[in-house]
């Protein structure tokens, strides 16, 4: 077994490093405190959304409503959380709980998560439009301050990414309950046989997804200062791509929080890199997809080699 196949984290790290080196080569001025912050600023909400998606992928499901959910959170944050903080906080809490309930429902009724979350995406989107029919709102001041804080030596975006990776690594990989949750993805029957209530575990995984989705929406408003009902629609696909790019698998409970954060950073960087290449925005989405396919192909080749050896 090759080192690459065994340590799945190597490939995400290498792809980020290569992309970063190429960016610095094309635009040396990006190699500064200010430049790095600018490059990775928007990666923070994407990283949080990717972690949220990872929680659901960890239990062999997929969440297609994450983008609209993050948009809804952003709308609530820019309106209710700013005007009436208590009510806003209660609404966000209710959203997290409804995510947990959704997880329990999907498990109990044996519904396909892909259908339920696709349906919920319209619910979240409708609510977001209802709350904020036209772009606007204001970020709570404390949130704005938090997202624009300037720590010494290393920019906020990098510090935040490291913290997110460390906390979720502890939660998912090191802790006992995280291990059991990954076990649900690996072999749900054996977890149930050991006496664990699967419904509660699924609800917990979805609840964690809701929690990180809420954090993503809040971080996004902190950066953009206002919200829009469609602000985060592309997060659904970005978050799935981020999880896979970071060494996760769609089924089998194989996920890596650190890899997911790195995957989110890589995706954000890819967009900036393409702008530096003076690529017309019309082509950027396609080119982003090409980068994604390239990395996934590399991973497939390495894992094939690993399993043969």
């Amino acid at each position, binding site marked *: 077994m090759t080192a690459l196949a065994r340590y799945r984290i190597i490939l995400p790290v290498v792809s980020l490093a290569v992309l970063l080196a190429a960016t610095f080569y094309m635009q040396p001025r990006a190699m500064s405190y200010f430049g790095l912050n600018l490059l990775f600023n928007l990666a923070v909400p994407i990283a949080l959304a990717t972690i949220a998606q990872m929680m659901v992928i960890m239990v062999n499901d997929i969440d297609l409503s994450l983008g609209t959910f993050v948009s809804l959170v952003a709308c609530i944050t820019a309106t209710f959380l700013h005007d009436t903080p208590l009510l806003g906080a209660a609404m966000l809490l209710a959203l997290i709980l409804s995510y947990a309930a959704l997880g329990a429902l999907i498990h109990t009724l044996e519904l396909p998560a892909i259908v339920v979350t696709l349906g919920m995406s319209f619910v979240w989107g409708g609510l977001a439009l209802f709350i904020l029919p036209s772009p606007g709102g204001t970020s709570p001041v404390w949130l704005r301050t938090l997202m624009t804080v300037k720590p010494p030596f290393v920019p906020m975006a990098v510090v935040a990414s490291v913290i997110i990776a460390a906390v979720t690594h502890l939660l998912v990989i090191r802790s006992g309950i995280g291990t059991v949750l*990954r*076990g649900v993805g*690996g072999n749900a029957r054996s*977890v149930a*046989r050991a006496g664990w209530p699967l419904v509660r575990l699924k609800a917990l995984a979805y609840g964690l997804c809701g929690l990180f989705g809420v954090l993503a929406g809040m971080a996004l408003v902190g950066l953009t200062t206002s919200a829009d009902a469609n602000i985060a629609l592309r997060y659904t696909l970005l978050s799935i791509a981020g999880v896979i790019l970071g060494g996760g698998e769609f089924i089998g*409970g194989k996920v890596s929080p650190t890899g997911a954060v790195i995957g989110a950073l890589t995706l954000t960087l890819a967009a900036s890199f393409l702008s530096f290449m003076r690529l017309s925005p019309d082509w950027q989405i396609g080119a982003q997809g090409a980068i994604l396919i390239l990395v996934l192909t590399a991973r497939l080749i390495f894992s094939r080699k690993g399993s043969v050896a």
Partner: protein
Amino acid sequence: MSEQASAAIVTLTQAAKHFGPVRALDGVSLSVAPGDCIGLVGHNGAGKSTLVNLVNGSLAPSSGEIRFATGSTAHAAGVRSVFQELSLCPNLTVAENLRISHRALKGPGWRRPARAEIRQSLDAIFPGHGIDPDAEVDTLSIAQRQMVEIAIGFAPRGTAARLVILDEPTSSLDAGIADQLLEHVRQFCAAGGAVVFISHMLGEIFDVATRIVVLKDGKIVAERPAGGFTRQGLVDAMGHVATEAAEAARTARELGAEVVRTEQGLSARAGEVVGLSGLAGHGQAAALARLYLSHSSSWRAGKTPRAVFVAGDRPRDGILPLWSILRNISVSVLRQGARWGLVDRAAEAETAATWKKRIGIRTENVENPVLSLSGGNQQKVLFARALASPARIVIMDDPMRGVDVGTKQDVYAMIQAEAARGRTFLWYSTETEEIIQCDRVFVFRDGAISAELTGADITEEKILQASFEMQEVS
């Protein structure tokens, strides 16, 4: 030994389990005391798995009683099961898998005790195992996974293991490692634990069991100390007696040239009904699937397929649940009746009507959804689908699962009639009554053919002998 310790760990009194009309377990009384090592044997469908699931608490009995010495649940009584199919989480490490079934491991730093516990358990059972507690399970070999599973079964896990149920524990272990396990089982029982040992290797059963329980048709037909059985006696106890009725069903036919031959040694001639037998899960289904795939192409369907497949697992690979009966039958012959790539509706309807009459599908209208039929009639639809195609070879993967007696008789007659017209049948069945009707039988054990029987040699006794490993475990 104190009063508490000598009391039975688990006692079953007239325990029965019914699944609908099927009596999987029909009034079993059994008690397991500390120090017992019970060898549990029986043929397919005798009720072994159901009995195990009652004892470990996965199923509740339909009637009768199960009493545990300590606590009211199997978990509290220290009853553990090691299942035949691998039930570890492949994405977790060995130590993390222990955590799944050991809830007392909590708080920061739980990994250290988890590693120590699983290493200790592995060392105790399989000295020199060479398994790293931090290795992810999917990097281990099948044998190593089985070893880990057994080690988790015997590990203390907060309480102590009092009764461990081992269901075919040695199926993927080599002889040396199997010996280590048997040695550990003996020590474990000598130290006051109890083991229920299920195996198709009779040598192992005689080697390790203090008491042997024989199950047949959901009942205990014999329960004696191990010394009270001879090997032959044990095989006899598992079998039925009456096979004359089935004998008569087999008719003498002229057999044609050989049409199937595989590397494994499976062969069949035109017009022959070939049975695949042995205990369930010993490679029969895989052999049939390989055979079928080698006779068909995934690119070109062709106008006349060489082989057709009758599935036993109807929901998984048989029925198209949203379609009507008619479409379920005609899906195999669409190419024959098609003109310019369009379905010939009239021919399709005629095919369905013919087969509805010939095979006796009980429905008023073949346009009804297929799920409106009973299980047996759904199976007839699958037979009609296969027989309607012009293919010369019919491969059947335990097709009579959950089918009522009347349907079975209809289908047996149909098979004999079609065979007389020169079709070849390859028939995997778990029921001896069906196997006895075949012209030739291959008995499978551990994924290989262990015996080939023909004509008068096809008896339940011979099949049982070949299904169970008779050699001494040395």
